[in-house]
């Protein structure tokens, strides 16, 4: 009985903590190497992050 109560008491803060985590903490960073196909006679050399859209 005592040990069961201890488990319950311990579980409450864990539950609260997991809900309090910001959304970004559950996200992972992924780095992918991509190739931009260039048939204009020169490399596509000046692209920035704003030029790419990633879709899953």
């Amino acid at each position, binding site marked *: 009985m005592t040990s069961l109560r201890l488990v319950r008491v311990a579980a409450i803060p864990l539950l609260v903590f997991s809900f309090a985590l910001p959304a*970004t903490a*559950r*996200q*992972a*960073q*992924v*780095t*992918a*190497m*991509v*190739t*931009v*196909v*260039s*048939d*204009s*006679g*020169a*490399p*596509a*050399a000046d*692209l*920035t*992050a*704003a*030029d*790419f*859209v*990633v*879709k*899953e």
Partner: protein
Amino acid sequence: MRAARINAAPLFLSILFDISKPPMGTPPPVSDMGSALASFVSKVRAENPGAQIAFTEVAGAAVPAVKFGAPPEDLDKAISRLFVGQHSEATMLEGLLDTAKTLAGQSAMRKVILLVDFGSHDATRTATANEALKAIQNAVATVWSVSIRPGNAPSSRREAAVKAAVESTGGLRLTAVSVTGLKSLLETTADSLSSQYLVTFARDGSAPISIDDVRVESKKGHKVLVTSLMR
């Protein structure tokens, strides 16, 4: 999201070039082949200062003519001496297997295998082709294919394997019906290999991600290929 062009990162490029004998009555396009290849190499070197280029001639067997680490003049010399062999087939898939094994030992991020063929017959066994596909995955290399296939070229078992290799690694397959199109296709290849970026983005969860899970688009209308290098 972040994006950074990586043309300054070392590029290990291995070219497998079909030198099989053309069909009876077709003159060997040695001059077109040599000038297109020289132009391609020049473009790659200009935009990728750390590029190392290996060159393998393929007919009855895949014979390495220039290995990684060789002086640039060796490659220039090999291209200027390009010839067409006596075998009417080119074992490109065997060469692909050998090259993938070599590239597996390189720690560089940018590893590319470029196959250039002229629609020749390829008698490589299916088991070897499958082994080559596994070796490419293991090497985390990208496979590109430039194929000159006249309308009357016989179908080859090479086609399916090359298609699978290109699509599973994020490479590109370019084709033309005449060798006069070779220079243009190789220039597109060189410019594209000089347009590689590392794109970093956030995603929900930590489940493994593969090339099939992600699509990257360009707001400027470029086609963007996601390679198998993803972490």
